[in-house]
């Protein structure tokens, strides 16, 4: 089915903020509450269970630190993509979007090795309170990374043709949000012993 034409409402901008960017902020806000609920639950439990530190010592802090570096670098590419899109340079925007997505995939690969190692050692989802949170929170975050990377690749196809360039900024906002979530997860899940 062909796409319906845009509604007139979609073309209006009473607040002065483009509708696409406004809705991205609202989506980010709603995601904040989802992660916020999970992380608040985790922190409350963690404070009540000092023995979780023993379980947490089995996480691979070095791999986590490397992944933090990868995600932060990919966020830099997201900013460069936005800059290129602002300058109407679709080709450049597409290139940086693909680099950002590459960072996302690298993150997931490292995560895959990490989890394989931990599962082989016998730490699975059902191994107790800490591991339940560890896999659920990081897993939900990884799903967001995967979704963001795929959307970037789709947007890059359009951007290379100089079409739909304002979208580049929206996906960039989302990517920074996913990045910031990781900035919370890394110390909470890996470093706090």
């Amino acid at each position, binding site marked *: *089915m062909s796409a*319906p034409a845009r*509604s007139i*409402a*979609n073309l209006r901008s009473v607040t002065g903020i483009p509708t696409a960017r406004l809705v991205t902020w*609202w989506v980010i806000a709603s995601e904040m*509450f989802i992660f916020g609920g999970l992380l608040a639950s985790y922190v409350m439990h963690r404070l009540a269970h000092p023995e979780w530190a023993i379980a947490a010592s089995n996480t691979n802090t070095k791999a986590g630190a490397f992944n933090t570096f990868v995600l932060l670098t990919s966020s830099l590419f997201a900013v460069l993509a936005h800059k290129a899109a602002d300058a109407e340079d679709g080709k450049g925007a597409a290139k940086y979007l693909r680099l950002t997505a590459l960072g996302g995939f690298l993150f997931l690969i490292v995560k895959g090795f990490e989890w394989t190692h931990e599962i082989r050692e016998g730490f699975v*989802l*059902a191994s107790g309170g*800490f591991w339940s949170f560890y896999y659920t929170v990081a897993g939900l975050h990884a799903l967001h990374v995967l979704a963001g990377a795929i959307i970037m690749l789709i947007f890059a196809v359009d951007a290379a043709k100089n079409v739909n360039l304002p979208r580049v900024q929206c996906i960039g906002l989302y990517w920074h949000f996913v990045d910031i979530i990781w900035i919370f997860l890394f110390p909470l899940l890996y470093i706090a012993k």
Partner: protein
Amino acid sequence: MTTPATGAHAQAGSHGHEPGHHEVSFFHKYLWSTDHKMIAMQYLFTGTALALIGGYLAYVFRMQLAFPGHDVPGYGLVTPNRYNSLVTMHGSIMIFWVAMPVLVAAFGNFLIPLMIGCDDMVFPRINRLSYQVFLVSAIILLASFFVHGGAFGGAWTSYPPLSAKGVYNLTPIGASLWLVAVALEFVAFLLGGINFIVTTMNGRAPGMRMWDIPVVVWMIVIASVLFMASVGPLIAGAVMLFFDQRLGTAFFDPGRGGDPLLWQHLFWFFGHPEVYVVLLPALGMVAEIMAVFARKKLFGYRTILYTTWATGILSFVVWAHHQFIAGIDPRMANVFTITTLLISVPITEMIFVYIATLYGGSIQFTTPMLWALSFVAEFLIGGVTGIFLGASGADIYFHDTYFVVAHFHYTFFPSAIIGMFAGLTFWYPKMFGRMLNETLGKIHFWGTIIAFNVIFIPLFITGAAGDQRRIYNYALFSEQERPGLQHLRELSTIGVIVLLAFQVFFLFNFFWSLRHGERASENPWLSNTLEWTVPSPPPHGNFAELPTVYRGPYEYATPGRKEDYWPQNAPITPIEEGAL
């Protein structure tokens, strides 16, 4: 309802037919439409169909309570396990699949674009997706009645460990399907709600300032914000509980480092704002109706909005009043008692504002006005009885009794059912282009309101006497039996039957008027807001010429004007300028 004859929608609809052929298939017109009015109808009809199912469930378990052990006509024998499923599903359906879709989604979809003067939502296809996800969630929920063990029987609040382990709730498959359905339903309303918020922020007609937005639109948008901010933790909670059920995680298992209280916090952090998510659209519709039928400017438009925001913010810090006997720290209980009693202040203020709107007005007792007035009266009873439950000392005694049941039905019934009927009878001419029959409407109104009070006033008494809720047969528990109260339990059941019987008047009125009702003009109630400036029903795209707004929505009985109403989009003529 709409026949898209022009524009891109017809193109989309005729895809696959020969060129120039503009007939759209049933599928495209009724299930795949992106038109906000059609999506509103989808939500409305799905929601009301589920309301009938929820009402039927209430009939079955009330019959069991009045005449325990007898076959219920139209159902059969109610076993203890079935009883648990019935009450659980009644609660879940009525709140998540009736109140939410009808009040927020159906009226939100229908009213927002029309009232703010644009052609559709900002994201019509996201809107369509929202309904489709909702429909899937409703189908999953209904399907759970037919799985092994039956539908979920762990109460609509779904407290672990009861909800987490099949050996406790005896409905392991139903419990997981319930969680999936609830989570999908949340996603559907997140998609819809964000669309409402952004449409109202960005899609308003030129000239419509913040304070020119009709109260009902404000209320639906504020409700969407509250929903968005409260549901996130519960979405996370639903995933955690699902993992506990299916993958053996330990989030709510105290034996392995989890905490069952965590679920109660996540659930009620959502659950209490949810009360206001459902209440606010109804309050908004009541405000519109009262201003129109009192023929008077709404008293304190800004006060209403300030109090709404105050209520919304306070609603996030009262949730633990549901947990006073769950083992929370008594000092915390004091804090939550104070916040709970505080929240009655803005709501009371709002009720006073409504009464002030009525004062000195030329009141017309039409059916929608009767519903609006009864909303205030009945909700007041719900609010006043809430004081008893908000005070932790009294709540320890009242907790989990029928007093609580009666109390929250006095808050939810006015919001969900009275609000729905108020809105439906008021906007029916705009939705379907015909007028409803007033006589049938009034018979239905009085039958419903009287029956409603017959159901729940006895339950205040049985609850205060100590009747626990979620008991399948009082005769089986010597400390619960209280034979002297059995006639009150029977009276309440008779109320349910009468209430359901009177809905026949509404259904007949609704479908008969669709074909035989008097044709509605553009503006049958002589109202100011923008939806009354377009034909009834509005065509695809709503406005032939997009309106410009010159004034607020409640300029009734302006001195110096010939008509007693003043549409928002009517420019000031030089003669009027002189007269004013």
